[in-house]
């Protein structure tokens, strides 16, 4: 038990540190860019929130928008902390993203997946926690999700997420082939202002088991396969967005992995902070039954 508490403490210290570092970095870069006048940048909520792997997006799905409120002339950034409390597990993710000139995005996220009582049942020990680091990069290729209201063309971005899982030995025991891998994705996002809708879709080439938390590849296959992510959101008012998301996953481990879904509400009281609450269904994760629960995410942005 004391070890567990220590691990949790260590985790929250690390998470807090990464938030502070990111926020400081963002403030420094933004203030350097914004000497002329007060805060402005992109329009409220148009850079999305931080998705579970750290990129700008919805909650589960990755979007083509660039994180932070920096415009083509500015550098912006964001930092986030997310907790997903599931039936049998708890997933925490925290990290930061820097957006350069509304063109490039670099992101980082560290994920901790607490197996709680299931860990003991699997012989790993109660509260056994899988940890993964995700290093992301994204480039906007074409289109503008906000200004191109007279065109069909969405904003399109190409990105990658390099994932490093820290639990190699256990992953091997589970049947996973690798403990690190890189996802590559193409995302298309369009904001239909007139209809007050945000539609986004992404095609992700991945070999991940449960986003990589349970490693990569397995007895059922080891190649990168295309998975689909989609979000549909409604702009209730400028600072309040309601939406649903879906993300397909593949069962490489033969443990019955299923697709993930969520329904979210995101509140943007101002450009510096947003709060996203969602009801998520991550499908089956090792133990029988679907893992459902509450997703809560706090983001700071500039």
């Amino acid at each position, binding site marked *: 038990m004391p070890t567990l508490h220590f691990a*949790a403490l260590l985790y*929250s210290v690390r*998470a*807090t540190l990464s*938030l502070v570092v990111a926020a400081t970095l963002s403030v420094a870069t933004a203030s350097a860019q914004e000497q*002329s*006048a*007060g805060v*402005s*940048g*992109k*329009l*409220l909520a148009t850079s999305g929130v931080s998705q579970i792997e750290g990129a700008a997006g919805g909650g589960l799905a990755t979007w083509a928008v660039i994180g932070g409120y920096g*415009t*083509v*002339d*500015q550098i912006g950034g964001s930092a986030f*902390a*997310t*907790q997903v*409390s*599931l*039936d049998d597990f*708890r997933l925490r993710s*925290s990290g930061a993203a820097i957006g350069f000139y*509304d063109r490039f995005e670099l992101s980082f996220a560290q994920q901790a997946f607490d197996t709680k009582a299931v860990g003991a049942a699997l012989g790993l020990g109660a509260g056994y926690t899988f940890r993964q680091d995700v290093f992301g990069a994204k480039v906007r290729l074409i289109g*503008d999700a*906000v*200004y*191109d*209201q*007279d*065109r*069909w063309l969405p904003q399109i971005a190409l990105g990658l997420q390099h994932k490093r899982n820290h639990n190699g030995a256990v992953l091997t025991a589970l049947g996973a082939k690798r403990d690190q891998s890189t996802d590559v994705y193409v995302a298309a996002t369009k904001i*239909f*202002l*007139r*209809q*007050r*809708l945000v*539609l986004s879709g992404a095609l992700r080439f991945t070999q991940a088991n449960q986003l990589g938390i349970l490693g990569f590849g397995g007895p059922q296959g080891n190649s990168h396969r295309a998975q689909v992510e*989609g979000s*549909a959101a409604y*702009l*209730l*008012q*400028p600072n309040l967005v309601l939406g*649903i998301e*879906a993300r397909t996953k593949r069962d490489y481990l033969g443990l019955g992995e299923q*697709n993930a*879904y969520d*329904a979210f509400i995101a509140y943007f009281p101002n450009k510096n902070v947003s709060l996203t609450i969602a009801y998520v*269904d991550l499908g089956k994760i090792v133990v029988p*039954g*679907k893992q*459902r*629960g*509450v997703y*809560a995410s*706090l983001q700071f942005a500039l």
Partner: protein
Amino acid sequence: MLAPSDTPTIMKDAAVQRTEPRSRIAIQHTFLLLLFAAMLGVGTPSAQAQQSSSSEAALSGFGGLEGLRTMTNDFVLRLQKNPRTAPFFAESDVPKLTKSLTEQFCALLGGPCRYSGRDMKAVHTGMNVRTADFNALAEELQLAMIQAGISNTEQYRLIALLAPMQRDVVGR
């Protein structure tokens, strides 16, 4: 940060639902249906822009031409106050700019007006307007519309019509 919470009450409901495979499938289908419906529900942007006919009714959401003029006047005053937009509008003749912008908004919304001002590219050439300045203007317009009690639907309608002008206004 977020306090860790073990099994909040909402999870107990979820645990009950887990035993009903039918409701699970229903939830998944609802998701996919909603996604699909949302995609179908989106019309061609250009078609939407042309949809409103030239009539007084097009301005009803703005309180008619008079309501639109009042809102625009407030908007112009805001532009002169906001430090981001002030440099571009400090010298502007308020009644003249209000008249011109009202005319432009009215025409865009499909109202009984014709914009007689210069085209957007010509007006902004040499001004070196940045995207952040353009957005600051959009934000002031939004505030003016909120102040005038204009509905969210009508606010988004005007913003959607103005958004593509970013290309003509910025970086000239």
